[in-house]
């Protein structure tokens, strides 16, 4: 027994509001490093792709221009066929440009931890294509100074055709393949068990993760840590447990599991009424919420009866005419108290500042929504995360935890986890079953019916 424990123990106190603890500093620097690292490699990938695209685009033009520049006098004249080919090259390049713009030049919606396999594959393909074309061009045409200009132009046209086919391949690999649903993903939030199911096609794990996240923000109700804890009155009763003393046994290291089992068994046998308390607490809370909600609904309905839209032929002096913002402020006062009490009871008050409430009221007033829809509904249920103010609740940094490499495709039974600091989304995959549909032909004339009989015949 150490009687000097008062001097030898160190106590870690909480940090004051104006100081930053060591943890905060490490977290901030880690965030900064991560984002810097991300930007760097992201830009590298994009610039590489851009350079390759530019090279591929300019190559056919170069093929056609170089003979003109280098050995113009020796070229055979080429009339209508060449002009036709020039026009086709021009249009094909235009189509390629538009198609590439539509397909590739979009703001990336997420940063993937690993290289996107299909995109890398396509880039390699384009690179090989262009390089091989240049090789042949250099050897066959530049070195030997081919005179047949039509042949050169046709060579350039064939490259443009090949590029268009690569673009078609890109469309199929990047866009079309994932459209047909093949897997059902179940996303469960670890903190409160909210779950959703989604149908996806063939995707890699990282792309499936991004898909899930996109849907998470508008499907899952916002994570409210205040709602998760059991009321304190219920929990405190559970704290007193049993203490097990071993009398006279010095080598009791092996008995620790036996001891803990004994403690658990004894605790289970003891009559435990905390479930009762929990039930009554829940019922009481439910009743309170409903009462406050009723008050809120009445207050809102009443408040909205005070304003109406200005009709064209109403005669009102200018001082009385308000814009939506002022109208919102005018009626906010009458429902503020009821709303505040309701939010406090449902523990939603961190999510709604007065500013956001006023903005929402303004929105509702402008668009003439009925009171039931407007103020009240939005606050009654915890809505999906995306409807709350962006900066506060939308976090962009998620961590993907997976046992398989994240560029692998989805397979039946794959489980991966998307982690945030205070909760995580566990996603499990199931293959959509193979349906065997068989056909049965029903002749419309075969629908015939008779009455149910119970005849009685005398004999």
């Amino acid at each position: 027994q150490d009687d000097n424990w008062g001097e030898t123990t160190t106590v870690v106190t909480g940090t004051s509001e104006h100081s930053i603890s060591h943890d905060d500093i490490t977290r901030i620097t880690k965030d900064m490093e991560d984002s810097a690292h991300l930007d760097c490699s992201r830009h590298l990938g994009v610039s590489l792709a851009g350079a390759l695209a530019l090279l591929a685009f300019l190559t056919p033009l170069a093929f056609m221009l170089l003979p003109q520049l280098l050995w113009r006098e020796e070229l055979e004249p080429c009339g209508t066929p060449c002009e036709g080919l020039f026009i086709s090259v021009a249009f094909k390049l235009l189509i390629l440009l538009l198609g590439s713009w539509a397909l590739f030049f979009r703001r990336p919606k997420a940063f993937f931890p690993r290289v996107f396999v299909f995109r890398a594959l396509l880039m390699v393909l384009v690179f090989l294509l262009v390089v091989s074309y240049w090789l042949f061009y250099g050897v066959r045409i530049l070195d030997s100074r081919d005179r047949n200009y039509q042949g050169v132009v046709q060579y350039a046209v064939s490259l443009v055709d090949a590029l268009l086919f690569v673009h078609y391949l890109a469309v199929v690999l990047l866009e079309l393949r994932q459209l047909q649903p093949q897997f059902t993903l179940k996303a469960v939030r670890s903190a409160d068990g909210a779950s959703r199911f989604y149908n996806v096609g063939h995707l890699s794990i990282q792309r499936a993760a991004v898909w899930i996240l996109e849907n998470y923000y508008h499907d899952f109700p916002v994570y409210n840590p205040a709602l998760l804890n059991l009321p304190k009155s219920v929990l405190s009763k559970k704290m007193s447990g049993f203490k097990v003393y071993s009398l006279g046994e010095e080598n009791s290291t092996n008995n620790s599991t036996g001891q803990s089992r004994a403690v658990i068994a004894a605790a289970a046998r003891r009559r435990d009424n905390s479930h009762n308390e929990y039930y009554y607490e829940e019922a009481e809370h439910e009743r309170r919420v409903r009462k406050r909600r009723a008050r809120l609904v009445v207050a809102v309905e009443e408040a909205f009866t005070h304003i109406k839209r200005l009709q064209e032929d109403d005669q009102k002096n200018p001082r009385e005419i308000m814009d939506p913002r002022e109208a919102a402020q005018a009626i906010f006062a009458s429902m503020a108290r009821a709303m505040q009490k309701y939010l406090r009871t449902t523990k939603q008050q961190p999510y709604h500042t007065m500013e956001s409430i006023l903005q929402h009221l303004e929105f509702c007033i402008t668009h003439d929504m009925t009171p039931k829809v407007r103020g009240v509904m939005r606050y009654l249920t915890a809505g999906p995360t995306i409807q709350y103010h962006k900066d506060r609740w939308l976090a962009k940094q998620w961590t993907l935890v997976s046992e398989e490499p994240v560029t692998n495709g989805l397979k039946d039974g794959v489980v991966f986890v998307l982690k945030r600091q205070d909760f995580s989304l566990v996603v499990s995959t199931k293959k959509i079953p193979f349906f065997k549909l068989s056909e049965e032909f029903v002749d419309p004339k075969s629908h015939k019916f008779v009455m149910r009989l119970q005849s009685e015949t005398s004999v």
Partner: protein
Amino acid sequence: LFLVSFQQRIEIHKLRQGDNLILGFSIGGGIDQDPTQNPFSEDKTDKGIYVTRVTEGGPAEVAGLQIGDKIMQVNGWDMTMVTHDQARKRLTKRNEEVVRLLVTRQSLQKAVQQSMMS
């Protein structure tokens, strides 16, 4: 496992009434009928032929046929899997004056069971 059937043989002599030979009872049931409406059957999926009425003083009553009897055979012909009309035809053959029925009866079954138990 052995099945014991509690059956009785009843011989009815048809009565001539004008141009017809009548037996003096009515039948219900058949495989084309609705078995759930049969008030006499114990098993409501039983589609057999049951006696629904017995005319007083008629040949059937004289021979001992009772209301609620299930007719199993008529002159050797099986009656457990026939349509209502087939049953009627088998009972009203013009060239037969005597019909020998094999019937089973719930009260009969219960009597035998009681005697077996005691």
